[in-house]
């Protein structure tokens, strides 16, 4: 379901480093009353600073939403870039943010969940996990080894009885991850399956989900988003179902779109 996104001038409550990846950072924005309209897989387009460098908006993925506001995570191009953007955020009282934007995961919380995530995708996965946990379902969250600790702390913030964090020590490219994911699917029949991360993870997940008997969706978190408003065609990808603009027709797609 696509929520009507809006432009907000949102005060910055807190800036933090979630850990696991020095290019990642987290921002809490004061946006009361928006939680109901925010769903996992969606994002905000944030203008960092008011100058010409950085120029374009940055994708800040939704990592959580509460009565007071939203928690977002951004994956910068490098740790140095993350530090630069963080410094600019510190100096702005209010952030020009457009969202909640893009398609969201259709959360089937009548099923247990299997979630694979990497990088900033782990934040979307944690948000997703809460929805299943609140419905009393079990969640298996699979992340790369270096993200395990960060995933654990995200999950602890949510109260983690029903959630199990497992990790893999495999490159995202190559057949090994696809095989590992296929094994995960085999031991999770009928589960609601989700993936959130860079294209390599999404491709491996979509391939492994071929014979899965439950819903399988993907969220492309590390694509090159330029305008984010569906106007410039910089984010277009080829899918079996035709050319899609990730920024407006995604970030969430059915896994079949990437088989």
């Amino acid at each position, binding site marked *: 379901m696509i929520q009507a996104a809006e*432009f907000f001038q949102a005060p910055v409550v807190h800036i933090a480093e979630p850990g696991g990846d020095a290019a990642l950072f987290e921002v809490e924005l004061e946006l009361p009353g928006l939680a109901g309209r925010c769903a996992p897989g969606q994002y905000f387009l944030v*203008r960092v600073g008011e*100058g*010409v*460098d*950085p*120029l*374009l*908006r940055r994708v800040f993925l939704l990592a959580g939403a509460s009565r007071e506001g939203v928690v977002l995570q951004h994956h910068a191009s490098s740790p140095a870039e993350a530090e630069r953007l963080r410094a600019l955020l510190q100096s702005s009282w209010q952030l*020009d943010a457009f969202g909640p934007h893009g398609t969201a995961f259709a959360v089937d919380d009548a099923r247990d969940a299997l979630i694979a995530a990497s990088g900033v995708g782990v934040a979307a996965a944690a948000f997703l996990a809460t929805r299943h946990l609140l419905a009393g379902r079990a969640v298996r969250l699979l992340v790369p080894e270096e993200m395990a600790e960060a995933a654990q702390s995200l999950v602890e913030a949510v109260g983690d009885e029903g959630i199990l964090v497992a990790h893999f020590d495999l490159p995202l490219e190559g057949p090994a991850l696809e095989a590992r994911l296929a094994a995960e699917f085999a031991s999770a029949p009928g589960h609601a399956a989700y993936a959130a991360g860079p294209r390599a993870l999404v491709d491996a997940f979509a391939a492994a989900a071929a014979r899965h008997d439950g819903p399988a969706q993907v969220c492309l978190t590390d694509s*090159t988003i*330029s*305008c984010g*408003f*569906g*106007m*410039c*065609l*910089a984010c*277009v*990808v*080829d899918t079996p179902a035709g*050319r899609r603009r990730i920024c*407006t027709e995604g970030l969430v797609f059915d896994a079949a779109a990437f088989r």
Partner: protein
Amino acid sequence: MPPHSVEAEAPAVDLRVSVGGVELATPLILASGTWGYGPEALPYLDYSRVGALSPKGITRHPRAGNPEPRVRECNGGLLNSVGLENVGIEAFIADKLPLIRDYPTKRVVNFSGSSVEEFAEMAAMLAVAEGVDVLEANLSCPNVKAGGAAFGTDEGLVRETTAAVRGASRGRPVWIKLSPNVTSISTMARAARDTGADAVTVANSFLGLSFDTRTRRPVFANVVSGYSGPAIKPMMLRLVYEVARELPGFPVVGLGGVMEAEDAVEYFLAGACAFGVGTAALVDPRCAGRIVDGLEAYCRSQGFERIRDLQGAIVR
């Protein structure tokens, strides 16, 4: 007679401009390539405050455009190598044009041919398509037949292409969008004027490239890309200034790095009669409304009742 404004104390500013006989409600033109085909930008702006919309540039046949990545920021500018992905002229006329025909603005259709003949063929199709107000020939694309050099960098080709488009346009206004990568922009503008152009758009993006020093690969598959945005404004202003000075009275649409009303004022002072906004759309599609409002406020503060009087209004 300018429309009489309700707020008595703040006299309305007449925002209408004419570009070679084409009347625009305001001087702001949405540049081709960064506002989609028109409907994508609808939620963010009021088309009645937009002088004209240039949809995504079209080619004779549909093009998938270049591989990823297609955009890269660099020091206050934007490099793009989208590669003119578009639905092709047939699908544009059949599917896209009908969506924007009733927008309260003018439609300046930007098209790129891979040969002079193809430019003429496309012009003939656009000349009879309902809802096309202006034909804007993009001469800043490679001439495939002649080894890929851009039409806009060869004076003879500019004459030949303009004449061919003029000949096929059945009297519809023809604007020629020039390439900025030339020694003498006024020579190219004169060539276009003398072979039937009603105005020139100055200009398309500069050629630029960038390497990823980690992988030691070019950022883009095509290596060379188009450079636009704030970083190119001083150079584009100089190009507009030269054309306006060398071809007095010939209409120039100036664009390059306009983000705020003050940037647009500089293009007027350089001699442009209207201005385009491209890269700024990517930063904030609400910028169109903000810039026109800012121009109105500027005219009031400087005592201009008509925005067109700003054109070339340099104080020596």
